[in-house]
C-alpha cells in the first residue's frame, strides 16, 4: 500500500556479497560500490584494550600479508558463504553506510542479496541475519546463477533454456534457467581462490618459492590461461626462497600456470558437464543452439571459454562485463522486485 512512498524515501539495495568482491547496486543509481570483501581489524592492548575496524575493502586488501601483529586482515567470506558472521556483518554495515544516505526520515533499506545455489539453509540464514544486522528492514535472497543470467541479458523469463556458468571467487555456479525459474542449479566450491591456491602450491612445489595470495592473483590475471595457445607469455615474480629464506625473483611461463590450473579447471568442466547431463532434453536443445554464458571474475581467465567449448562441443560466450553481471542482475531484480517473486530464493 505504501510501496510508492517507500520507494520514494528509501534507497533499496542489491548486494553481490562475493568471496572476493562485494558490489552494491542502489535503486535508480546503478552499481555504486565495488570493493574487495576484506576487513582489517586492529586489536589494541593496554588499558584501553579494544577491537576496532582499521579498514574495509580496497584499503584492507592492500594490507593483506603486510599487516603487523596487532592488525588481522580477514576475508570473512569463504567458498561463497559466510565464514565469520560478526566480521561479515560489520563489513556489510560499513559498505551500506558508504552508499546509503542515513537521513532521519528515510526508512531502512530493503536488500536483495545473492547466495550460492548450493548453499545450505544455515548458510542462507546466516547471510540473511547478517544483512538484517547491518541495517536492512527486509532481506530477499536470489540465487547467484539467476542473478548472473539476468545481468548477462539472457531471456530468463522466456520458455527457452538458458545456461549460465558463474565463476566467482569461492564457487562456480552452473544454472539452467527457463520461465523465470531454475531448472537445474549446481555449485562446486572452486573459484578464483582455488586457482590462486593452485598457483601458490605449484610454485612452492616446483620452484621452492613462497608467494602470497596477491602475487598469485596477479600471476593468474597476467599470464594465466585455461587452454594452450600459440603464444607463450612469461612473467617475473618475487617470492621467498624456502631453502635460503631470502627473497628472490624468478620467471614463470603461461604454460606452467596452465599446468598448475589444470586440476581446479577440471572440476569446473566436470560441473558444467554434470549440469548438461541433468538438463531436460528440450532445454538441452536450446542450449545447443545458444550455448552457455560465462560470468564472474573467473570468466576473465584467458581461454576458459575455449576450454569449455572444446570439452563440451557447445558455443561458450563470455558475458560483457562479467565481473558485474551478478550485481547488475540483482539490481534489475531490485528495480522490479514487486513483480518478480518467482526468481527469489527461499531460505
Amino acid at each position: 500500500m505504501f510501496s510508492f512512498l517507500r520507494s520514494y524515501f528509501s534507497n533499496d539495495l542489491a548486494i553481490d556479497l562475493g568471496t572476493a568482491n562485494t558490489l552494491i547496486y542502489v535503486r535508480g543509481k546503478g552499481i555504486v560500490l565495488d570493493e574487495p570483501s576484506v576487513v582489517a581489524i586492529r586489536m589494541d592492548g593496554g588499558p584501553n584494550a579494544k577491537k576496532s575496524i582499521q579498514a574495509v575493502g580496497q584499503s584492507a586488501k592492500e594490507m593483506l600479508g603486510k599487516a603487523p601483529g596487532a592488525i588481522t586482515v580477514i576475508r570473512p567470506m569463504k567458498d561463497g558463504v559466510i565464514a565469520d558472521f560478526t566480521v561479515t556483518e560489520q563489513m556489510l554495515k560499513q559498505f551500506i553506510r558508504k552508499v546509503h544516505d542515513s537521513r532521519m526520515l528515510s526508512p531502512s533499506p530493503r536488500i536483495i542479496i545473492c547466495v550460492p545455489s548450493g548453499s545450505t539453509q544455515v548458510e542462507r540464514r546466516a547471510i540473511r541475519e547478517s544483512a538484517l544486522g547491518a541495517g536492512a528492514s527486509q532481506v530477499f535472497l536470489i540465487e547467484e546463477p539467476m542473478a548472473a543470467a539476468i545481468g548477462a541479458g539472457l531471456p530468463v523469463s522466456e520458455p527457452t533454456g538458458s545456461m549460465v556458468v558463474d565463476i566467482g571467487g569461492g564457487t562456480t555456479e552452473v544454472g539452467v534457467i527457463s520461465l523465470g525459474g531454475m531448472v537445474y542449479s549446481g555449485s562446486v566450491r572452486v573459484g578464483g581462490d582455488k586457482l590462486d591456491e593452485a598457483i601458490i602450491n605449484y610454485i612452492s612445489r616446483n620452484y621452492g618459492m613462497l608467494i602470497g595470495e596477491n602475487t598469485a592473483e596477479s600471476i593468474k590475471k597476467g599470464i594465466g590461461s585455461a587452454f594452450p595457445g600459440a603464444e607463450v607469455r612469461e612473467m617475473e615474480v618475487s617470492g621467498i626462497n624456502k631453502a635460503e629464506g631470502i627473497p628472490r625473483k624468478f620467471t614463470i611461463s603461461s604454460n606452467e600456470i596452465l599446468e598448475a590450473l589444470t586440476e581446479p579447471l577440471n572440476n569446473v568442466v566436470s560441473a558444467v558437464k554434470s549440469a548438461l547431463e541433468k538438463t531436460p532434453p528440450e532445454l538441452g536443445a536450446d542450449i545447443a543452439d545458444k550455448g552457455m554464458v560465462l560470468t564472474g571474475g573467473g570468466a576473465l581467465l584467458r581461454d576458459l571459454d575455449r576450454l569449455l567449448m572444446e570439452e563440451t562441443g557447445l558455443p561458450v560466450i563470455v558475458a560483457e562485463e562479467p565481473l558485474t553481471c551478478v550485481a547488475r542482475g540483482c539490481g534489475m531484480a531490485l528495480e522490479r522486485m514487486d513483480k518478480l517473486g518467482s526468481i527469489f530464493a527461499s531460505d
Partner: protein
Amino acid sequence: MNGEVTPAQPISDIPGQGGDPSSSDAESAQAKGIVGPQLRMAREAAGWSVAEMSRMLKITPHQVEAIESENWADLPCETITRGFVRNYARQLGLDALPLMSALASASLPQNAALEIAAGTPVKLGLRARIERCDWIKVVLGLVVLALAIAAYIFVPADFFRTSFSFLPSAEPSSSQVEPEASDVGEAAGAAVSGQEVAPAESSTEPAIEAPAAPVQPPQADAPVPAAVAPAGPLEAAGRADGAVVGQLKFRFAQSSWVEIRNGKGEVIFSQLNAAGSQRVVEGQPPFALTIGNAGYVSLNYNGKDVDFSQRSKDNVARLTLE
C-alpha cells in the same frame, strides 16, 4: 567516417591483427553496417570454409552464414549474438571492439523484457502479509496488557464482591466456612467457635470430634480438649472440664487471614475470615499467631485486649501469646 575496409584487405591489415584498433575503423563498420561482410572477408582471407568456422566456434553452419549475411533474426537474442560475433572476431584475430560498436546500431533481436507472466506465485507479498499479521498480534497484545493494568489500578478491590453479592457463591457462607474450621480443629484438637456458626451444624461437631480426642474424663488435667462451641454467647462450651486455659477472641472489621499454631507447632486454626465476623479459638498456650490485614483485626486474649500494632509489618502481625 571515410575509412573503408576493402575486400582485398589482408589479414595483417585488419584491426586487431596487424595494427591498433582505430576509431575510424569503428565508425566505418558502424556507418556501413558491414560486420558480417568483414567477418566473411577475414574468414576467406584466412582460407577457412563456413564448415570449418562452424566447427571451431561450435555453432551451426547456418548460424555462421546468418552472422556473415547479418541475418540477425535467425540468431538467438542480442546477448548471444554479440557473443557469437565476438568469438568469431577473436577466432579470426580481429579486434572485436569496432564490431561491437557497429552491432550496437544494428537491429539485433532485443533481449526479452524481464517480466514474469501473471499468475506466478510471488513470495514477496506472502512475506509482507505475514509481517503485517505479526504487527496486528503485537498491537492486540499491547492493548490487552494496557486494559489489564488499567483494571488493576482503577477497579476497587471489593468491586466484584459488592457488584455480584446477589450471587450465592459471591461470599462464602457460614456453612462453607465451618467445615474448614472444624477440619483444622480436628487436626489440632482445638476448640473453635464462630458467631455465624449454625447451631445444628456445630452440634454435630462434638460427636465427630469426641472419638478423636482423648477420653474426656472429668479429670481436671485432660491433655487436649476438643470442642466446637455454639457461638451465640461467645463462650467455649467445652471449657467446663478446665482443660482449656487460653481463649482468643477475634473481631474482623475487614476480611483477614489468621493462622494459629500451638506450642507443638501444630496448626490449630487457619482460615480466611469474612469482614464483620467474630471468632473464638481456645486451646493450650502458647499460641503463635499470624494475622493478615492486621489493621482491621482486634484480639482479646483471656479477657485482655492485645495490641499488636507494634508487631505488624506490611499489615501482617506475627506474635506469640504465652
